[in-house]
């Protein structure tokens, strides 16, 4: 378990959760380490933070939550799908693609999950001028 903490940088610990920030180059290595501990993917969340989008992978290792944060530049960087190692992540990645407009390679079924292609707005969870706290 300590090897996982060393690959990324632990920036917060709270009760039963650990929050790790990891660089893109070391992300694959971290995934393989987590798979060797029989981790289960619990959820994948996204957040629009100005020029970058933060993607947080929530893994569950025997009851302890390990949250891995990855920062991705908007419309520049293309990330790999994790469905080869964790097949349960299929629906979460579809939702990320349609809500934030992130491009994910090697996904087995890259169509919209909730939104309609013609009638719904595009990328609704990105921040636009006129939203709550955006000037």
């Amino acid at each position: 378990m300590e090897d996982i903490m060393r690959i990324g940088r632990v920036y917060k610990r709270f009760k039963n959760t650990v929050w790790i920030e990891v660089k893109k180059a070391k992300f694959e290595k971290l995934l393989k380490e987590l798979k060797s501990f029989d981790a289960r993917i619990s959820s994948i969340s996204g957040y629009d933070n100005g020029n970058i989008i933060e993607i947080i992978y929530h893994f569950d290792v025997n009851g302890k939550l390990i949250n891995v944060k990855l920062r991705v530049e908007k419309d520049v960087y293309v990330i790999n799908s994790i469905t080869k190692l964790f097949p349960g992540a299929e629906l979460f990645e579809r939702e990320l693609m349609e809500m934030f407009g992130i491009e994910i390679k090697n996904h087995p079924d890259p169509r919209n999950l909730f939104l309609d292609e013609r009638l719904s707005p595009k990328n609704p969870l990105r921040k636009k001028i006129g939203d709550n706290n955006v000037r």
Partner: protein
Amino acid sequence: MIIMSGKSLKRCYSLPIGPQHPAFPEAENLEVKVDGETIVDVVVNVGYLHRGIEKAMEERNYIRSLYLSERICGICNFVHTTTYCSLVENLLDIEIPERAMYIRTIALELERLQSHMLWAGIAGYELGFDTLFHYIWRDREFILDAIELLGGKRVNYGLNTIGGVRRDMSEDVKNKIGKILKYIEKRFKYYIKVFTTDITILRRTEGIGILEKKDAIKYCIVGPTARASGVDYDIRRIDPYMAYNMVDFNIITDNGCDIQARVKVRLLEALESISIIKQCLKDIKKGDIRIKVPFIVPENEAISRSEAPRGEIVYYGRSNGTDKPERIKIRTPTYINLLSIKPMLVDENLADLPIIVMSIDPCFSCTDRITIIDVKSGKREILGEQEFRKRVDGKNDY
């Protein structure tokens, strides 16, 4: 159309089921490819209840978002509000009083009881056993009476707030809930006998809709669906919250992997819930029921989860120093359990489809869109309401 299945080419017919279908109480769309009466492939389309709740929560302050999270689901609304309140309490880093934890636990277990009873009745209805459906729903009314005594309403409890609960539980309410539970326990033992020994139910549920343990682990399935395939995982035991580390209870698992195993797991879990409520009613002590919390939440990031009647609910949240949340992400249990429909349905009979899909206890909702599949060309077209009316009626003055 012709598709590859196994080693042979099969000539199949594509059958869209839903979103409006008399066999399902809620709306979902399954594109089922059948060869005679055997199902060969299935694709699940969701999105019929997408209301944009996560975006709406960013524009409402924390109390109004609490009321919005209560309306996500009608059957499991208390666990949504409990997880939301735990999330905000983690963002603020405060502890709620012990009496509030016990009252929340009692309401959570009452909700699990009524949800499993609702499911058992609908399972009886899908099997064609209407009498069982009516008997179980009659007895469910007593649990809704108990919930009304505790919270004031039958469906959306309105009991939770950030920092505790809003209504206290008097001695009179405690005694009445105890009497209701005695009657419900007797009835549950009778229903367990019916579901596990009646010959027709056994013929329709044993050996059907199999989800093996390796598939349950591979697709990250949660809840009683996974526990019926031998995966021993329950948030109340592994990551205890509220008063669950102060009571004794068993986690029910079964190695059957079929529909009969899921029936047994849910009904035996309901008996454990009754025992948890009785222990809580005995152990609860006097004290405060809520503490005051500030309106402004400092910048922070947190996560909280609970065990709903259908599985694990996860709320991830972020705050930004104002009185409105910055981002809240909700993951409900049916979201991930959708991946288990395909392994369960392939190579089964078409007539068993309603009971197999209901056995994962799905919790979708509905909108007003229609999918038309042109079988010859395989093209899918989605029409809005106006276009559909134009095609059907030939009028365009709506």
